[in-house]
């Protein structure tokens, strides 16, 4: 079966191509094909997984050669797949959660005229993500990486008739590009240094010490830049919130199971490089720790349920990056948390989608309230995921997150205190914002009016008719909630996931290293903080009335609401020049001229203007240009000859 693992990528890809090529002819059954393709990929993934499971653990890494992609002299790139426990873990997560999201989308997108196209993009996304995790070289990984970017661009901007959404899509694209540059440069450096970008060759070269520390650090930092862009970590985090503009299943797919986890995957996949460069590794951990707090703060301040979830994703990915930055102790836990997070975050998003569906697509939590009575299933499943993400035992988040917090406290010097402290505080804040969301949505008093009820004319509350979602939507959520409930425990059984990942993440003797604090103390402290967070949220949002419009709040709250001004910073650093090169310049010369006059146009534009002046339309000056070229060339040659 391993030899057929290319089917994993091929099935959804073929389905996407078919759906796009057939056009409206496939409208009637397109969504079913999309679901089948995702499910088919899952089945293939499962079969491969079972085969690999049947092998002794040291033989579980396979390189499947597909074909020689670009033979160019000594430098050639082969296309091949890497089948090992790490990639298979991702494959199963992506295809399983992906399939559920596909099923959910049947209901969610039922009324959208372009549903077939939506499923085509979803399939494309899954195919690209699978290629990303299955690639056996950085080059092929980059193809999947770009494919994921492209598909997310298409999906986020799916409702591109809304200008704001289109802008969000563009923003995601541009910010991702910055990260991609890092990946490209890393590849270039590797190419220059060892002439290959396949994982096998790179790992061998790094192990053999073929690269100097400076080189390894440079490669590591550039890879990190790529990971940061894809995983929405500081400082490239701003796009994630805006990317919520896409249809909710997309948010679920992007946030929970796939795209944002690519950065974590990249770091774990390149662990040898990071281990060879303590500097790069430390930067990874720092970024993770910082982002987990930043994301949590943003999540606390947002009233938009999806944006709040986006902040939470940022924060949870921060945990994973932190774990990956801790070194061998953390890799397995990073992946473990990634898997459990995949389930409960997908559940939360789909639950949020269900709530929105019931509330006329409103995302403002301040207009929800008391929904538990009308949306029982959603309430229960959302609740399970809520408990899971907070790390309340025995829900799955407890097993994975607690391990990360414990690991963060292992080490020497200032690091365990800082990282451990951040992880600990993060857990408390997580409990606060998730409880805030949960209580705002399902508890308290209804801040909406049932349609048909008599309303006072000056009542500011919106008129709604909340209702439970259809089965096709609730069943996937239920499945995910079950995962959120039991997966963590199941995967720790008999050292489950850490043992399974060992061939890739390396063996780590957890008993040989001790945390700076006793483990029970850490666990208890975590749980106390979580309880505190819940209590605080309950006091503020569960018991007391919530105003329809947000109070002004402190400076910190206001800053967090605006994503800590990330937009303004990015606007200046990334978007402005990007836009100059893209959008503004398109429209008529006046804009360009104005821009030049105001002196804000970048250097490229100035040069472009110069080129335009040269191109004055007169044959005589063109001929003069040619002659000048000849003279210059002659002079250069003469000089060289002398």
């Amino acid at each position, binding site marked *: 079966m391993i030899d057929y693992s290319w089917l994993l990528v091929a099935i959804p890809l073929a389905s996407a191509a078919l759906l796009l090529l057939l056009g409206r002819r496939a409208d009637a059954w397109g969504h079913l094909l999309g679901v089948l393709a995702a499910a088919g990929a899952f089945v293939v993934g499962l079969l491969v997984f079972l085969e690999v499971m049947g092998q002794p653990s040291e033989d579980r890494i396979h390189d499947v050669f597909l074909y020689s992609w670009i033979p160019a002299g000594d430098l050639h790139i082969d296309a091949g797949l890497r089948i090992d426990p790490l990639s298979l873990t991702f494959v199963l997560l992506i295809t399983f959660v992906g399939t559920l999201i596909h099923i959910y989308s049947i209901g969610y997108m039922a009324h959208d005229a372009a549903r077939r196209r939506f499923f085509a993009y979803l399939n494309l996304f899954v195919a690209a993500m699978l290629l990303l995790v299955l690639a056996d070289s950085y080059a092929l990984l980059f193809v999947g990486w770009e494919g994921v970017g492209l598909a997310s661009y298409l999906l986020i901007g799916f409702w591109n008739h809304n200008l704001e959404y289109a802008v969000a899509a563009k923003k995601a694209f541009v910010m991702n590009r910055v990260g991609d540059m890092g990946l490209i440069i890393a590849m270039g450096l590797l190419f220059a240094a060892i002439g290959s970008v396949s994982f096998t060759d790179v790992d061998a070269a790094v192990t053999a010490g073929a690269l100097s520390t400076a080189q390894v650090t440079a490669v590591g930092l550039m890879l990190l830049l790529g990971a940061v862009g894809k995983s929405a970590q500081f400082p490239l985090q701003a796009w994630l919130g805006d990317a919520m503009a896409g249809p909710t299943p997309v948010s679920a797919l992007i946030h929970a199971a796939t795209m944002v986890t690519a950065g974590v995957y990249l770091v774990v996949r390149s662990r040898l490089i990071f281990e060879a460069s303590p500097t790069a590794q430390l930067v990874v951990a720092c970024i993770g720790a910082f982002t987990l707090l930043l994301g949590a703060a943003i999540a606390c301040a947002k009233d938009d349920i999806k944006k709040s979830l986006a902040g939470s994703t940022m924060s949870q990915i921060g945990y994973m990056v932190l774990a990956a930055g801790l070194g061998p102790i953390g890799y397995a836990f990073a992946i473990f948390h990634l898997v459990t997070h995949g389930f409960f975050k997908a559940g939360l998003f789909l639950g949020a989608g269900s709530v929105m569906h019931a509330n006329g697509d409103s995302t403002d939590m301040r207009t929800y309230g008391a929904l538990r009575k009308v949306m029982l299933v959603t309430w229960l499943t959302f609740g399970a995921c809520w408990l899971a993400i907070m790390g309340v035992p025995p829900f799955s988040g407890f097993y994975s997150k607690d391990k990360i917090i414990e690991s963060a406290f292992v080490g020497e010097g200032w690091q365990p205190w800082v990282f451990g402290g951040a992880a600990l505080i993060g857990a408390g804040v997580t409990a606060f914002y998730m409880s805030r969301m949960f209580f705002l949505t399902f508890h308290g008093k209804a801040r909406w009016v049932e349609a048909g009820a008599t309303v006072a004319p000056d009542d500011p509350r919106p008129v709604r008719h909340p209702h439970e979602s259809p089965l096709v939507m609730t069943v996937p959520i239920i499945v995910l909630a079950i995962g959120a409930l039991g997966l963590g425990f199941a995967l720790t059984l008999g050292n489950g996931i850490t043992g399974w990942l060992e061939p890739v993440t390396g063996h780590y003797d957890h008993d040989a290293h001790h945390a700076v604090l006793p483990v029970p103390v850490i666990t208890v402290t975590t749980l106390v903080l979580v309880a505190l967070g819940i209590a605080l949220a309950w006091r503020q949002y569960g018991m007391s009335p919530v105003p329809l419009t947000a109070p002004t709040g402190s400076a910190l709250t206001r800053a967090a609401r605006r994503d800590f001004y990330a937009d303004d910073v990015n606007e200046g650093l990334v978007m402005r020049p990007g836009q100059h090169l893209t959008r503004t310049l398109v429209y008529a010369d006046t804009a360009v001229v104005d821009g030049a006059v105001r002196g804000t146009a970048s250097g490229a534009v100035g040069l472009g203007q110069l080129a335009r002046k040269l191109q004055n339309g007169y044959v005589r000056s063109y001929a003069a240009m*040619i002659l000048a070229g000849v003279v210059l060339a002659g002079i250069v040659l003469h000089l060289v*000859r002398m």
Partner: protein
Amino acid sequence: MTTFVAPVIDWAALSAILVIAGTGIVGVLVAAFVPASSRRTVQVVLALVAPLAALAVVAWRWSVVVGGGESTLVAGQLAEDGPALAAQAIILIFAVVGFAVMASRLPNGEEAFAPQGAAAPGSAYEEAARRAGLEQTEVFPLALLSLAGMLVFPMANDLLVMFVALEVLSLPLYVLSAMARRRRVLSHEAALKYFLLGAFSSALFLFGVALLFGFSGSISLPDLGTAAATTVGMDGMAVVGFVLVLTGLLFKVGAVPFHAWVPDVYQGAPTPVTGFMAAATKTAAFAAILRLLYVAAPGFGWDVEPVLWAVAIASMLLGTVAAIVQTDIKRTLAYSSVAHAGFALVAIVSLSEQGPSALLFYLLAYGLATVGAFAVVTLVRERDADGNVTGEATHLSQWAGLGRRHPVLAATMTLFLLSFAGIPLTAGFVGKFVAFVAAADGGAWPLVVIAVIASAAAAFFYVRIIVLMYFSRPEESERPGADAVEPGALTRASLVLCALGTLVLGVWPTPVLDLLAQAAKFVV
């Protein structure tokens, strides 16, 4: 007086050229003798069948030549070897897809060319010709004759043949540039500029030939190399001559500073002609540059590298920055073609062994996307107040929102643009990769770094067009609204071929790269 010995002519080796030139001449006779009603059909069939037949012939010659059958023909004036045949094959592929676009009509029966080339624009005579449904079917023989010149170019092993081929390929193109059906004044202007500058540059080329002849006493490229290696003194003459000859060829590929005609001509010429000429002329001229550099230049023992470096860098940078500020899609593509001339030069700048095959692959990738992109341009049309289809909507703002109304067409265009930008899984990426590797192999690392930066910057303006198509809504403006028309069967076929080629060469380029790698050896 020596007795005359008739040269041995290997007709088999010349057969591809003869097929094309012969069909061109038959086409002239068709224009003369076939009744007007069936003239166009006959011409189109001839113009499409001939390149295919020639392609088959080239394939046959390939099987003869690769594996050690390289030879020089007609007393050493022509050379039949791998690079020449590969270039011919690529040019013929462009001819097939390019001619198909040329032969295509809009749904309302309008074709791309003026009903009567000689009629003054806006005159009563032109109007009458248009009403009478006249068609200038001479475009096909003209294109075929130009193609014949292009096929000779890669084989040209002496400067005289090179000069004649240069003229044979250029003269019909000057005329074709003037034949646009709409915006004829622009078309005329483009033709005049192209002609004057083309004639000027070929005069420079010729003076270079004279100087090189004076320097070495021979016009054959291999002799030239030998003479340069042995002759002492007269360096000045050789240097100036070589620069002038190189100039004539760089003019044809549109490299800076010999590029000034490119934007004006690409914009003014009929779009199908632009597509064909952008792809095929560039390939032919690059093939000639290849032979000049690889056969003659090494003997010179000069460092021509600095000049090529300067030209490549200038082309990449100027092409990119100028494209960024353009507002016309044809001009944008024209500047991008200038930039691509620079990227292609990168492949051969260090005269490395992989240079020729890398360059040829690059040209194949670039040409397919170019013919395709210009074919898409022919389909996006303005509408007048009554909703009738009028001229091409070339202003970029008119392309806004195309993706929503015509997803398939916009997706096709996107594919071509991504290939231009060098995004992985498109032919353009593989082309850039092999080109840069070839340069790096020859030690031109700094150039490769510049090229990578330039291609990253260039990606911006391709993405800009994509963004425009998908994420902008049409603006309120004084320009007439625009919409795409249904492509005719031939254009559709051409687009499918170009798109497939771009994809296949991006996903699985190995067979083509292997073939080209066999073709890297020049006969001396």
